[in-house]
């Protein structure tokens, strides 16, 4: 490495005398050159795979992977949950998006339900005793359509036979006999009374107000003036006769309602006799078809009774008189016959092929889950009946499995609560959500609930699962099984082979070109890159499938018969190119010196940090200048990011830790009379995370020791209070970000990045960086401790503490300690001089 003396132009004039003596003494010591730190070899920067080791020509040689790879834990959980017969062992499948969770679960369930198993059909029918409470009936699998068709056929038959039967001579003559018997009886009684009155010279006349009587002579009513001339006893006699006749007439008229009632009863009996004959004939076949189902049979009996009672509906046309072109009305749409129809809530196919339902509800709203009661607007009112009961996904999944996305479910008003309520009650009840809240004022229904036997499988990410587990007290009781999908698997030879078969299944499913061994190798490498870990492979099937499809596009673009390595490479590059506009802009601001980043030379108290910016699915690294200034003070580091409210909590924590390290190492027996300020220069957005804490510490050490830092290096890594450098995220993007900045100005061979040693296993760098490292044009240093790091950055030995308690003279640590002691002494003497001045009634503190 290099040995660097402090720059000659450094000024120390402003330092207090006490500080100056310690620091100057330390500075007098020659700097100790650090041992050379060997950068990581190129082979450590990216884990490649030899295509030949895959033993394949193209993926066509492979048996496509069935189901998932490396998800044994999740699959065992699915197996367990779907086999537990109890209602509360429902399943929550958690894992990252596009990890193939739902595809895997569907494939698993498809295998599990491949054998036919009878699942009940459910229908809603009219409740003739209480029409607002429709009845739910279960039928053996596949028999409900037959019932509906048979009912329609029976009604069609009745529509033909009933009018004919009631037009028949047999019926008409019997009816006329009843009518005539009644009417002629009334007329006859009236005529007899009329004759009797006439014999007594009393006239009975029809008036607009009713019937009236008066004395009559020679067929004419006697006028009052004539009547009054009659002797009084004669008049009284006539009036008495009229009185008697009036009572008789009233009796006759009053008997009309009674007779009318009898007539109606006789007619009703006659109608019922004929209706029974017609209805029994029409429904006999259906009754025998469903004789094995007592509830259906009982419903058919109720239908029969109602049809007989309301046989008149078949005798009216029911057609719109204003209709210009009269068309035969489909009986199933005729409002007069709705109550006899069958509303098939769910049917699972023919009896012999009936299978367990697997229902995935993509839009899990309340209505789509538990069903809804629809209404028809009629004359300004909203009306409904049992035929307007619409089933939900729970009805369709009854007896099987319901698959729902948890996030969508939770975002749908009322849906989550309804699902829990339904699972708990083990019955699905169709209700209006507004009704539950007491908002419903229109006509609605209270249909019988349908017993529920369903296994609910929710899909969601881990955050959602843990939130529900923590905050929803019902959740743990109802979703007792979690199937936790890993997003990565170990990159072993076996798993690499399985990965190749997974790629084969993707090409098969999407009808893509086969991938050759080079292409598969590149995809495996990209799998590690996506996993951010070269020991792992990403099994986010969705992303992998996207990549293979895009590579297929470029293979077709090149008229290639197979997808080769370069097609995969191009797909990756094109995807990045499509998304990296902001990265380019950021890069440009650095190359044009708008954002100041030095990639050569040395500076005291200045260092290149590395940050990762995540924009959608694309992340990239960007260097950022971090500077530190120190002075005598009261033991405080000013984190300017935090003071400006641009620093996040984790960043603040990192700064506090580095302060802890400084105090623990250098201020065991002296106060920390240090004031320091740290800043991310030209950072106008927020800063968070602790990955820059080691970087900030290096800047501070440089500022305190007055030893410059090589600006061709950038640093990432967090630090603990013992000075150990800890792993961080996004290591590949960070290195690539700094590499691009350096490459833009030309690689000097002095440039590189310091990364935590623990992150070496995550390295899956771009091939151009690997090549540059291999050629010695760029270096990646793995760092375990701050001392290692400061040596690489400055070329000066960090320095161990000697038996006398001091650090090796000329080391960075010795210079830092001396500087801090200098600050402490200066602070003490400063305080003393202040006291002296105060005791002497002196002047103000300067």
């Amino acid at each position: 490495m290099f040995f660097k003396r402090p720059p000659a132009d450094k000024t120390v004039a402003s330092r207090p005398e006490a500080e100056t003596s310690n620091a100057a003494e330390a500075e007098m010591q020659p700097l100790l050159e650090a041992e050379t730190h060997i950068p990581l070899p190129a082979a450590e920067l990216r884990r490649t795979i030899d295509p030949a080791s895959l033993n394949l020509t193209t993926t066509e040689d492979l048996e496509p992977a069935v189901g998932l790879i490396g998800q044994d834990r999740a699959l065992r959980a699915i197996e367990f949950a779907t086999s537990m017969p109890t209602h509360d062992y429902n399943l929550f499948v958690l894992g990252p998006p596009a990890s193939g969770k739902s595809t895997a679960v569907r494939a698993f369930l498809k295998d599990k339900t491949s054998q036919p198993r009878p699942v009940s059909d459910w229908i809603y029918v009219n409740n003739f005793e209480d029409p607002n409470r429709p009845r739910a009936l279960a039928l053996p699998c596949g028999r409900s359509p037959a019932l509906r068709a048979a009912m329609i056929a029976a009604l069609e038959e009745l529509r033909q036979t009933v009018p004919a039967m009631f037009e028949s001579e047999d019926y008409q003559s019997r009816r006329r006999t009843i009518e005539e018997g009644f009417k002629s009886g009334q007329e006859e009684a009236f005529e007899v009374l009329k004759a009797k009155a006439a014999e007594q010279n009393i006239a009975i006349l029809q008036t607009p107000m009713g019937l009236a009587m008066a004395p009559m002579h020679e067929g004419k009513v006697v006028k009052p003036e004539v009547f009054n001339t009659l002797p009084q006893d004669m008049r009284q006699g006539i009036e008495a006769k009229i009185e008697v006749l009036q009572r008789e007439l009233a009796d006759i008229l009053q008997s009309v309602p009674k007779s009318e009632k009898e007539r109606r009863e006789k007619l009703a009996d006659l109608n019922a006799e004929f209706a029974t004959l017609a209805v029994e004939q029409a429904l006999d076949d259906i009754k025998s078809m469903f004789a094995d189902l007592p509830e259906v049979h009982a419903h058919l009996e109720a239908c029969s009774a109602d049809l007989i009672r309301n046989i008149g509906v078949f005798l009216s046309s029911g057609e719109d008189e204003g209709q210009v072109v009269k068309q035969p009305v489909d009986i199933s749409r005729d409002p007069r016959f709705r109550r006899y129809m069958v509303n098939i809530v769910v049917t699972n196919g023919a009896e012999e092929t009936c299978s367990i339902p697997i229902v995935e509800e993509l839009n899990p709203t309340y209505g789509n889950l538990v069903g809804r009661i629809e209404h028809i607007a009629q004359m300004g009112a909203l009306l409904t009946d049992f035929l307007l009961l619409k089933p939900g996904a729970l009805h369709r999944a009854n007896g099987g499995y319901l698959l729902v996305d948890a996030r969508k479910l939770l975002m749908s008003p009322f849906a989550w609560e309804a699902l829990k309520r339904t699972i708990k009650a083990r019955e699905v009840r169709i209700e209006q959500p507004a009704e539950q809240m007491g908002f419903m004022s229109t006509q609605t229904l209270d249909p019988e609930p349908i017993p529920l036997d369903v296994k609910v499988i929710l899909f969601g990410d881990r955050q959602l699962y843990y939130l529900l587990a923590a905050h929803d007290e019902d959740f743990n009781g109802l979703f007792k099984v979690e199937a936790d999908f890993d997003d990565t698997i170990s990159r072993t030879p076996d798993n690499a082979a399985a990965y190749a078969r997974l790629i084969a299944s993707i090409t098969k499913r999407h009808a893509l070109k086969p991938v050759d061994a080079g292409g598969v190798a590149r995809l495996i490498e990209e799998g590690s890159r996506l996993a951010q870990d070269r020991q792992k492979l990403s099994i986010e099937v969705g992303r992998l499938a996207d990549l293979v499809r895009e590579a297929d596009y470029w293979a077709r673009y090149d008229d290639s018969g197979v997808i080769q390595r370069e097609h995969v490479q191009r797909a990756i590059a094109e995807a990045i190119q499509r998304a990296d506009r902001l990265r380019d802009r950021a890069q440009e601001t650095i190359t044009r010196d708008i954002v100041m980043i030095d990639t050569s030379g040395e500076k005291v108290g200045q260092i290149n940090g590395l940050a990762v910016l995540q924009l959608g699915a694309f992340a990239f690294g960007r260097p950022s200048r971090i500077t530190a200034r120190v002075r005598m003070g009261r033991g405080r580091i000013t984190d300017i990011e935090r003071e400006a409210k641009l620093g996040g909590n984790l960043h603040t924590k990192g700064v506090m830790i580095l302060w802890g390290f400084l105090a623990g190492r250098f201020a065991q027996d002296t106060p920390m009379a240090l004031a320091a300020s740290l800043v991310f220069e030209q950072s106008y957005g927020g800063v968070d995370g602790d990955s820059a804490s080691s970087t900030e510490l290096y800047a501070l050490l440089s500022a305190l020791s007055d030893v410059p830092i090589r600006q061709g290096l950038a640093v990432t890594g967090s630090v603990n209070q013992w000075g150990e450098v800890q792993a961080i995220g996004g290591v590949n993007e960070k290195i690539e970000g700094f590499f691009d900045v350096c490459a833009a100005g030309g690689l000097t061979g002095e440039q590189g990045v310091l990364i935590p040693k623990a992150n070496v296993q995550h390295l899956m760098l771009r091939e151009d960086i690997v090549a540059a490292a291999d050629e010695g044009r760029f270096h990646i240093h793995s760092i375990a401790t701050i001392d290692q790091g400061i040596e690489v950055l400055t070329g000066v030995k960090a320095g161990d503490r000697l038996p006398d308690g001091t650090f090796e003279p000329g080391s960075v640590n010795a210079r830092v300690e001396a500087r801090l002691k200098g600050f402490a002494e200066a602070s003490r003497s400063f305080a003393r001089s202040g006291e002296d001045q105060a005791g002497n009634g002196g002047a103000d503190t300067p």
Partner: protein
Amino acid sequence: MIAHVAAAGEARGRVVLRVCGAGPSAVALAAAVHVARAYQSQLESVFIRDEHVLAMASHPFTKVISPSGRSVKHWRPADIDREYRAIERKVVQHLNQLATPYDVPLHSRVVSDDPLRALTAACAEAGPWNVIALAEPVGGYAFDQLAAILSHVRDATGLVLAGRNAVRTDGPVVIVVDDVASISGAIRAGSRLAETAGQPLLVLPAGADDPETDALEGHLRLALADASEDTSAEIVVTGALHGSPDAMAEVVRRLRPGFVIARLGGALIPDPDALRSVIGALEGPLFLVR
């Protein structure tokens, strides 16, 4: 018959609707309008305030019994007057609804008199070509009353009425022919009614016995053969009726006629008993001719 009006080009034919104020029948009103339409004649409503009823209302001791028999109360002439007016308004309104779409001219008058005398006077005013229509439904015991109208009102060719079971005016027009002399007139009258209603015309030969029925049928066939091409009628062939009015009434009923044309005192309605059968059987209006 009124058919003569059309045949003779007579312009003074009229339908005279008698309204006595005891609850008019909708079928009777529709039948009256239908006849007026068929013969393009005017319809005059004669609202009769029966002098006997008015006299009756003047007696302090008389009471009116409601149709239900539950209310028996004293009444005053003012009450009866109010009721007459209400019925008159109702009938005029109903007739307007029926007649306006067909441009049937409507007239009306109010008369306080004996009903038969009022009717006779009204018909006499406009010459002999009148058809009387009775607004109130007719019961089975009205034979004498109907006979009296036809006998006293000489300036009328026929009488249209609705029985108590009348519920419709749609259906074929059925003519009951019991007299060779009236065949051609009956067919002309029936044709007009059938044509207006857009319904078929059926002719039932009804002799006093079966041979006479057979003979009538023969004459009918000849008459129909001679009739104009516009006349389309069908002879109803039945089994032996033996001249029985009940059997004829049953045959007519089964034809479900919208209009029946028959002679009062003829083969279908020879006597009061037969009228009771016919009134009980018919669901449409009856056009009685002399």
